[in-house]
């Protein structure tokens, strides 16, 4: 382990993986409780379209990916609140239209930019210190938001109507939650890629959901699974020389199936 960390790029890769694993699995708890699992994929694709536009314009991809992720999240939130469309319809539209935009922007490039593949599948070994710092800032903001407004967020998620009657502004907090999800996705995109960021958000939280009836335990377990799978996945990828993103996601999927098999909730439900 110490010999691996002797390399500067490996240090960055480990720190970035742990941060992405921790932040994604933390926000993932609220994503699955709110029933927004599919939305994560929609925002990730919007973010990818933004990144390709940045590359097309020869500008840093990250600000574009962040703006696109935020616009995608806010569009879904707005469409859902208006209630004219079922929430899976705007997500489906964001998902497909932004992917079309990404392909269009890539097609308009004079020369193929190899970073496109990195954003699609992730390239943890190529993250820079500025990427790590951004992930740290994202993590700090997300943890601060959840710690400060935990009561308000949980209330809005579980009973939007009662929260509204109690004058607790549930729509404001649900929109802020969407912004936090967009921030996490845009920040994690370079490390794990469009396709796998979705798994890093949903799977640790889904595994933890099988194991506890307590909200706080759910958060702790989800973050533990997220970080554990990131470290184990990265180590496995190094030892067997396989892609790190795939290895991380397969480890967390394995944890999910273990949770499903040994779920005390399912056992208790059978008894009731």
């Amino acid at each position: 382990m110490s010999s691996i960390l002797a390399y500067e790029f490996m240090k960055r890769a480990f720190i970035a993986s742990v941060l992405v694993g921790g932040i994604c699995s933390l926000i993932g708890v609220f994503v699955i409780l709110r029933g927004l699992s599919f939305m994560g994929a929609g925002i990730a694709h919007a973010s990818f379209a933004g990144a390709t536009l940045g590359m097309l314009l020869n500008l840093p991809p990250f600000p574009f990916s962040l703006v696109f992720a935020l616009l995608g999240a806010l569009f879904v939130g707005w469409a859902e609140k208006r209630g004219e469309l079922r929430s899976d319809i705007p997500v489906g539209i964001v998902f497909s239209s932004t992917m079309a935009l990404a392909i269009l922007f890539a097609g308009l490039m004079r020369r193929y930019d190899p970073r496109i593949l990195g954003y699609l599948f992730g390239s943890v070994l190529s993250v820079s210190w500025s990427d790590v710092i951004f992930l740290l800032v994202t993590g700090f903001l997300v943890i601060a938001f959840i710690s400060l407004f935990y009561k308000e967020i949980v209330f809005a998620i579980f009973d939007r109507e009662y929260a509204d009657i109690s004058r607790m502004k549930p729509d404001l907090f649900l929109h802020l939650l969407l912004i936090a999800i967009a921030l996490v996705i845009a920040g994690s995109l370079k490390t794990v890629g469009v396709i796998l960021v979705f798994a890093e958000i949903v799977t640790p939280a889904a595994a933890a959901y099988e194991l506890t009836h307590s909200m706080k335990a759910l958060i702790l377990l989800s973050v533990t699974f997220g970080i554990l799978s990131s470290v184990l996945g990265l180590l496995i990828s190094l030892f067997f020389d396989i892609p790190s993103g795939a290895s991380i996601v397969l480890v967390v999927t394995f944890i999910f199936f273990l949770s499903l098999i040994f779920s005390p909730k399912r056992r208790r439900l059978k008894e009731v």
Partner: protein
Amino acid sequence: MDWVIKLENVTVKDRDKTIIENITLEVERGEWVGVIGPNGAGKTTLLKVIAGRIIPDEGKVEVRGSIGYVPQLKKIDEFIPLRVYDVVLMGRYGRLGFLKRPGKEDKRKVLEVLERMEMEGYAAEPLGLLSGGERQKVFIARALVSEPEILLLDEPTTGLDVQAQREITGLIRKIHEDGVTVVMVTHDLNPVSPYLTRVVYMKKKIFACGEPSRVLSPEVLSKLYNAPVDVFERNGHICVIVEDAHYE
């Protein structure tokens, strides 16, 4: 008059569709009002207007006093990561406001209400594993911890077995006896008819409003439900039987 709820010519529309129309109603302190009517009559909308969740398109709503609200019982995820204690504590959040965390007083109040409802043993139970009747009691407890002066209940006994219906009715009776004004939407007046101070019959508009014994007549109810209705009294309870028009 010591009114706590006053609605004047209230109309609510959803785009072009009128949900409730020109409703004028005053509820006095200490009353227990039952609101009945067929499906789609706007009963739930009326409660939400009083609760401040829906702003009417026309008319004026005034409420004097804090409100506790018990929504219709919905199907919930059995795996929901909430325990009874957590759900009841949510009833204090409105009083706490933003950023403040629940303190000792809030926790004490939750345990006190659960004890009063003989549910202290349920505090650590997962919400998803409770029966419909138990869950309804939890939602009533959540409304009560906010120490409301007015309690709004949306079909609190619908979908529950007879035993659970009886328990919930007894509970609401106790709450009313403690001085809380109750407005309750219901499909089934039979278990609560002896305790209601007034009944409101509505179908978008208010059709009739008054004391149950004076207003509960086969003529009014038959018109409201568009089916023959029989009304009789037994042991102080006014019983309403809506016959199926199909068999006429």
